[in-house]
């Protein structure tokens, strides 16, 4: 395919344009969902289960209803039939048996599950009334971990009879044959802890019911408003066009926010029942037990190699804890683990099994780099263990096995149950590794690795990764010429704080060959703007919406040429469009504002994913007295195909790396044996702060544009997080090489690192 990647007038794409959004965010004029107010508005508060597993005998709302300011209390009994939340991804019949009811119905299965909704004049009065609801729940034995779940002695869903909703298998080649004759194999068992996206803005919604029109408006949606409209319309028994989804400013998503949650039905329902606008804002404690969790996985992984370090095969079995229900995209991480465990490496024979289990914990969903963060931790750790076993340099081992450019497109394993095939589209994986090593000064620092310097053990590591993006099937945009000759861009994409307005305006301005300030407005997220939209997830917007804008701009320019040619009596090919004018032969011209009202639709359709790729390197110092790991340097290099805005891309990368460091060192949802969440506040759930990781260097490249879309873009929002766990764990292993410790579990919290050192000392494994 021809890729018109460079045009003479291409001035905005690739430039570090300061963001348009910043003007309102910096001055306190952003409009987030809790900032909204409406006439006659009431407030909703959710009563959540404090029991992890139990049978609901009764919920008595009489006293709560009698409290001052309370307008309604809604429980499952008020709903008649209780709808379940449909799966957005991978809706296999097996998984659909575990869909979450919009309100606890007969049973509760996790701490935090909605039991009732109180509607009152203020949030405080609604919260007061929560205490007056009398709930009788008979506690049942709790499934608090994966091993208990797999025994199927305590069952979460009696009607189904097993805690294993489904198993996935991804295959390439003949793995057993490859292992049978392999000269060397190595096996290890890894664990990645439960942690989550935790965006800074808690969720919120505002629902307004129009009784006359029988129409609901739900504000505060994001990510996938069109999908959620479909789901909500069905649950409410309304035609889709009677459901309006409106996006406001969104305080971070990272995969979790914007999926369909119970409240996305309960709040509109309350608005219809009370015929009053209803606003709901969760608090942080609720947020930590109600928003999707993620990552909770263990994996048995085995690799086969030649003695000189050529990888022959990879096989394994991962078990992912989905929590109490299968949510909208609950299986996505499992699917990714099965498919991309091999990463950017040439592994001819692969077989990955993934078993999904349910437990009495908060359900999981996607979190930036779903399944990829987990797989990269397992794979990159195993690679360093193998290199050490075989006495091969870690770099040489990776270089030898990276997929080369000549091998592109390179197919990954096929997910059998879901019939999902994908292939690496393009890239020079060795080049990003080399660049990373250069920036990191690997040769110089490798002399320090494993050394005890001023009381701390120093270590370095590097890892390579792939970032899948550009998920299909399509995205749609609309470009319209306004009365003043400026352009309005309407997109089906959603903003979760990543800077959509700015970067899409850059693409539009270049595609139209107009100054950026001629792009008057970028309207996104709401269902009002385009007939069909798909939203923002899976690093898709720069690929799908970006190329749809190019398509729309091409159509708009053609239409302007054609219209101008008719008026100027010439051929469309004789019309030039320049600086807001359509210019014909003999300098006859028409101003663009004379075309006001013209609007065109553009689309980009593709089911092929793009693959950005790169390498990260880390330099750590481990204090053996405390187990604290200090990050002395971190270098991230990624080739994203085509850079739209280096400023925002850099921000995404550094932000993602630090999120990954949170997952590698700090963040963990801890439950006790009764299924109680012990880390339900920011005092217990530790997120990175400004003083934790002061040195992160990120370098973005655009050496290899994607050959499968006109802009050459690839997804780029998630790459920064993907390799972090593996890279820093390998750096810790390198630092502690004299103790021969092998970090197999995340997070590498001070107690865990300290314990590894202590047990190595006790067992006498340490070489000094």
């Amino acid at each position, binding site marked *: 395919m021809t890729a018109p990647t460079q045009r003479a007038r291409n001035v905005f794409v690739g430039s570090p344009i300061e963001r348009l959004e910043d003007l309102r965010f910096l001055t306190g004029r952003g409009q987030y969902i809790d900032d909204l107010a409406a006439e006659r508005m009431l407030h909703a508060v959710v009563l959540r289960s404090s029991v992890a597993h139990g049978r609901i005998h009764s919920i008595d709302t009489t006293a709560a209803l009698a409290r001052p300011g309370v307008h309604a209390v809604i429980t499952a009994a008020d709903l008649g039939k209780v709808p379940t939340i449909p799966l957005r991804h991978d809706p296999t019949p097996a998984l659909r048996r575990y869909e979450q009811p919009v309100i606890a119905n007969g049973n509760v299965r996790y701490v935090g599950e909605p039991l009732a909704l109180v509607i009152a004049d203020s949030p405080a009065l609604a919260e007061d009334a929560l205490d007056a609801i009398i709930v009788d729940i008979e506690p049942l034995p709790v499934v608090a971990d994966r091993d208990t779940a797999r025994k199927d002695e305590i069952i979460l869903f009696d009607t189904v009879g097993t805690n294993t909703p489904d198993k996935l298998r991804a295959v390439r080649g003949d793995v057993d044959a490859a292992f049978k004759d392999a000269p060397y194999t190595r096996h290890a068992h890894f664990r990645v802890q439960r942690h989550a996206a935790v965006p800074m803005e808690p969720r919120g919604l505002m629902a307004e019911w129009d009784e006359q029109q029988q129409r609901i408006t739900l504000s505060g949606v994001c990510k996938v408003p069109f999908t959620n409209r479909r789901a909500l319309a069905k649950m409410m028994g309304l035609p889709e066009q009677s459901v309006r989804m409106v996006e406001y400013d969104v305080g971070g998503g990272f995969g979790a926010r914007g999926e369909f949650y119970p409240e996305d039905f309960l709040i509109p329902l309350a608005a219809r029942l009370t015929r009053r606008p209803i606003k709901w804002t969760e608090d942080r404690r609720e947020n930590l037990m109600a928003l999707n969790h993620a990552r909770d996985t263990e994996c048995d992984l085995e690799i086969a190699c030649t003695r000189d370090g050529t990888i022959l095969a990879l096989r394994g079995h991962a078990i992912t804890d989905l929590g109490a229900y299968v949510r909208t995209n609950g299986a996505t991480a499992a699917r990714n683990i099965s498919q991309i465990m091999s990463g950017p490496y040439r592994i001819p024979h692969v077989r990955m099994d993934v078993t999904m289990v349910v437990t009495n914990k908060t359900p999981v969903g996607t979190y930036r780099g779903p399944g990829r963060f987990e797989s990269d931790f397992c794979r990159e750790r195993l690679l360093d263990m193998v290199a050490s076993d075989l006495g091969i340099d870690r770099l040489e081992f990776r270089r030898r096995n990276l997929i080369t450019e000549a091998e592109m497109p390179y197919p990954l394993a096929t997910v059998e149950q879901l019939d999902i095939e994908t292939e690496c589209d393009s890239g020079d994986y060795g080049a990003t590794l080399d660049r990373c090593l250069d920036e990191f000064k690997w040769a110089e620092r490798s002399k320090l690795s494993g050394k005890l310097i001023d009381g701390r053990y120093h270590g370095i590591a590097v890892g390579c990764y792939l970032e899948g993006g550009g998920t299909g099937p399509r995205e749609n945009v609309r470009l319209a010429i306004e009365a003043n000759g400026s352009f309005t861009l309407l997109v089906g994409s959603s903003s979760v704080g*990543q800077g959509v307005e700015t970067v899409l305006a850059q693409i539009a301005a270049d595609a139209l060959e107009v100054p950026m300030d001629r792009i008057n407005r970028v309207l996104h997220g709401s269902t009002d703007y385009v007939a069909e939209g798909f939203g923002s997830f899976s690093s898709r917007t720069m690929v799908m919406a970006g190329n749809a804008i190019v398509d729309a701009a091409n159509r708009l320019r053609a239409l302007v040429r054609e219209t101008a040619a008719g008026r100027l009596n010439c051929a469309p090919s004789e019309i030039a469009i320049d600086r807001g004018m359509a210019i014909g032969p003999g300098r006859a011209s028409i101003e663009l504002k004379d075309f006001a009202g013209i609007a065109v639709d553009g689309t980009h359709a593709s089911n092929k994913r793009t693959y950005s790729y790169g390498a990260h390197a880390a330099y750590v110092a481990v204090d053996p007295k405390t187990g604290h790991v200090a990050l002395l340097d971190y270098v991230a290099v990624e080739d994203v195909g085509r850079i739209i805005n280096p400023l925002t891309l850099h921000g995404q990368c550094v932000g993602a*790396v630090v999120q990954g460091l949170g997952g590698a060192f700090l963040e963990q949802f801890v439950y006790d044996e009764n299924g109680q969440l012990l880390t339900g506040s920011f005092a217990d759930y530790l997120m990175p702060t400004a003083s934790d990781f*002061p040195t992160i260097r990120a370098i973005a490249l655009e050496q290899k544009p994607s050959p499968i879309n006109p802009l050459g873009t690839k997804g780029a929002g998630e790459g920064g997080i993907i390799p972090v766990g593996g890279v820093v764990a390998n750096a810790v292993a390198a630092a502690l090489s004299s103790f021969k410790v092998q970090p197999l579990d995340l997070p590498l919290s001070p107690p865990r690192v300290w314990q590894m050192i202590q047990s190595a000392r006790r067992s006498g494994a340490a070489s000094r």
Partner: protein
Amino acid sequence: MPVKFEVNGKPVEVEVEPRLTLADCLRHHLGLTGTHVGCEHGVCGACTVLVDGAAVRSCLMLAVQAEDAKVVTVEGLSLEQGLTPLQTSFRKHHALQCGFCTPGMITTAHALLSEEPGCDADRVREVLSGNLCRCTGYISIVEAVLDARAAYQRDGKRP
């Protein structure tokens, strides 16, 4: 009960329940929604405002405790048009993405730079470590604050 204080240079008088936080009072009684509420337990710092010049978590302070105080929010640190030097520096360094923590970062940084316009990077990190940001990884925020020091050194101590 009634409470009287000054917000962004203007006197206000509000009738509030004693249990109402200053954050909720600012947001829902006075319409100053630039102050954000991220955790309601004093950890995230999104609700930081200035009370008599000091950076304070408005989710941990009751509105009635603000009696007679001078309260400044992000709106009060902003101009009618355009951006202040601190805000300009944030934009230049791409020190914000979703913008939710940003008002707390601006108020915290303003309080710091007003008191210590010569502070070094470690001091900036130390002070900002009381404000959580999930998007940026903080590095750009620290750079933005360091880059804004010059404006505070030039202007001397600002309100």
